[in-house]
């Protein structure tokens, strides 16, 4: 007899607006407090203290326009946020500061979250959707120099890029970008040469989110339809469809694979969070807590495995935090 799904370990309330993005920063050694960063539709970034379950700081840097992406760069003191004010802001949060140190004007009016990749100490690559409708621009941070612009060929009709993931085959090798587009295809780009390596049509509707496991060279993408698509990358660097999984209700906002590559979580338009085993995409749990669309899911980076958490942010303005399959 299967157990009923667990309840959230705790719920964070107080953002005052729909939550669009979440990012944990719990890897630091004691006495660092484990933190959760959240970005909301009212333009605020909240820094949640996971010990007290209260907001430590509220950052206001996007002119009250919705923040749809927050990421840390290295440690909890360097934060990157992206908002609907067409800006990407870099923050310095050491010793309680709340200042924006730098910003990039992207001119992007869509919702495509940027992707970060650390290439060397203090050097990052960032992929973001650019001004022109179907282009992706790669910038180097913190220098903000443009590395290249990835432009699909004329007539490709991919539409806007919807989600991005920068990664490397192994440390020190060439960075590559996986981009999901409006027409339902996922494209693998060679960043240094600015060329397409492979293109795969995964969905009939726009790709809403994707995540990739570089060890197994396997990735997963979700769309506004009922299908999850799992694809793999072979030795010739070609994308192939591996499997598809049909969901009960249509619409996925976000997908994320846990750092240990054992499970993955999806955030659904049907207010539910689904957990799957990554190896065979075995459905493991359906977490039904929220009362509106779940916009984002994120796994924590706790060094102690037993403390690992999963957080989900929803349109109902709450962030649910779960401890699930933490023992394995």
């Amino acid at each position, binding site marked *: 007899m*299967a*157990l009923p799904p667990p309840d959230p370990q705790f719920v964070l309330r107080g953002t005052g607006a729909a939550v669009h993005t979440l990012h944990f920063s719990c890897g630091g050694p004691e006495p660092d407090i484990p933190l959760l960063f959240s970005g909301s539709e009212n333009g605020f970034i909240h820094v949640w203290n996971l010990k007290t379950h209260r907001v430590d700081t509220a950052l206001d840097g996007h002119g009250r326009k919705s923040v749809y992406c927050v990421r840390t760069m290295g440690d909890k003191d360097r934060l990157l946020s992206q908002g609907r004010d067409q800006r990407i802001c870099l923050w310095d949060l050491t010793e309680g500061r709340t200042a924006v140190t730098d910003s990039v004007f992207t001119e992007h009016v869509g919702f495509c979250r940027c992707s970060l990749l650390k290439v060397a100490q203090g050097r990052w690559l960032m992929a973001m959707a650019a001004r022109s409708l179907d282009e992706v621009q790669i910038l180097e941070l913190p220098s903000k120099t443009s590395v290249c612009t990835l432009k699909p060929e004329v007539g490709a009709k991919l539409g806007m890029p919807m989600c991005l993931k920068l990664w490397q085959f192994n440390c020190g090798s060439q960075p590559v970008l996986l981009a999901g587009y409006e027409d339902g295809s996922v494209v693998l780009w060679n960043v240094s040469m600015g060329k397409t390596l492979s293109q795969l*049509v995964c969905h009939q509707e726009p790709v809403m989110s994707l995540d990739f496991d570089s060890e197994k060279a396997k990735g997963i993408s979700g769309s506004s339809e009922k299908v999850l698509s799992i694809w793999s990358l072979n030795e010739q660097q070609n994308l192939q469809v591996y499997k598809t999984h049909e969901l009960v209700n249509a619409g996925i906002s976000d997908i994320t694979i846990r750092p240990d590559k054992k*499970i993955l979580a999806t955030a659904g338009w049907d207010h539910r969070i689904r957990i799957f085993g990554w190896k065979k995409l*075995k459905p493991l749990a*359906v977490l039904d807590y929220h009362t509106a669309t779940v916009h984002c899911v994120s796994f924590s980076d706790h060094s102690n495995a037993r403390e690992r958490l999963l957080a989900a942010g929803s349109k109902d303005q709450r962030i649910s935090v779960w401890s699930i399959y933490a023992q394995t």
Partner: protein
Amino acid sequence: LSFIPGGLDCSISFVSHVLGKVCIHGRQKEILGVLVPHLTDLTKSDCIWQRICWRLVECVPDRWMEAVVLGFVQRAPGADALSRLLGNLVVKNKKAQFVVTQKMLLLQYSHMTAVLQNLLGYLSLDNLRRTLLLRVLQELLETWSSSSAVKHSPPEQQLYISKAILICLSHLKEPEIESCRQELLTSMMQGVKCHLDSSLPQVRRLGMVVAESISLKINTEGPVLKFEYEEDDETRELKSFLAQTPSSCDVFSIPEDDRSEKTNAALPVVSESKEKPHTAAAVMPDEELDAELDSDDDLIPYDMSEDKELKTKAPVYIRDCIEVLTGSGSEDLDKWEATIKALDSLVRKNPAAVREVSVELAKILLHLEEKTCIEGFVELRQRAQVAVLTTDPIPVAKYLTSQFYSLNYSLRQRMDILDVLVLAAQELSCPKFHGKTKPYGAQKTSIQLLPRSDSSKDWKRIVDERIKGKTRRFNMGQSHVELASRPNKFNSVAGHFFFPLIQHFDRPSTTFDLLGEDHLVLGRLVHTLAILMYLAVNTVAVTAMGKALLEFVWALRFHTDSYVRQGLLSCISSLLLSVPVERILADMTEELLETQSWLGDVVEKDPDGDCRRLAVQNLLLMENLKKKLEAIPS
């Protein structure tokens, strides 16, 4: 008959005389059946035989020319062959010209398509004759674009003329089209207007197809006229004429086969080449993982039985539904959609609650517009309206019928009102119990919805059924099951449905003129009245309805629109079937006698085939009635 090969100087004229005489006496088939194939073969390569043939036909005296030419055109196996046989006869001989360019095209319409192909192909094959081709096209277009022709000529003739126009167009070359482009455009515009005005869908479609084809020919670049209509065999055949190239005009076998051959050859193959890169087949996951240790096994799934499809809840109370539908906020479109889908069953489950707000609900539904893209919105709305009307018939019928004649409704809304009234009347008069038991009479004839203009076909079936039901048959036992009878709910409300609709038809208002432009709605109104009359059988009001209907029909009997006339004739059928014989005898004898003479006129003179059939039907019904009356001992 064997022809002398040699002797170039022998006189052919005697043979021509014989030929002419035989043809005029009606023996075309016999003589030409032998002659034409012979001549076709002989003239294929031999110039001398060609000249002989030409001499032959030229010498036929004028008074017999028509029969001969007609025979040749009908029997020639193709335009090429006809050209060889007749030569430039049409140019040289006035009578032949008249037959070919006027009589066969404009005054007759019984010829098969192959004959048309022959004729027009023949005209196109020689430069001398091409001027005639252009003239023919002009005259055809004149007829096609004349509104009186469209209104009064039978649909079969209109089809014939349309075919001829399209075949002509397919033969024209660029410079010729250039020279008459302006005229083509003018005729097209005029013609399209007359055709679209008609109430018969076949005529409308003909207009659309021909106009599209003309537009295609005269606008070689730039946007082309495109209509939306349902394709059927007729439209496909018409379009295939335009696509054919002149060289493929030779008809050598049975017309049907040939037509399909031509369409296959001439229509361009549309190949969709959507390049979707790298959609490789899915790699089967099983093989890969068999060898590996499955560490997924230690992850135990939780109970997921609650994971079902997400459904927005529709309101449970009628007043809540009203709130959702009239809500100005309408942010919650999911709820709006759910309400629309649930409304029909909700109304039926809560009749008492609905009766309190019936007119309000009817008003909301009448004005309801589609906010989101639901499948079957029109049907859902209609079902809800019918549910409301059947739950509280009298006030809602009063409302709807008054709105039918009010200002500022679209034609579509007025016709929707009529449809709803018919469906509700049908439901009230023969209640169905959700598929469990089906009353005998109604289901056989399945009166579904009113909207099609060819409801006259439905009517034929319905009336046939009724007639069958009323004629005594011997040697046929009880073939139907006796079902539990229920009170006819339509009885008390029939009058409320019927009389308000018939009251104001002759009073035009600023936005609605039944007797004027809006003859389509008039046609639908007449059909609606016919159905209501039919459904009112055995009700108390049926006689009064019958009398009113007879007067109505009498007033409109000469209407120019054939759809309206078909409706009027259906009204008479319903009347004869529904009003009890005794009442007809007592109250309506004189009117019926007048109607009978009108029906006789219709049978003989009405251009529309359906009208004639319906009139014959009515006369038969009257005959039956007379017999019945004679059978009653009085």
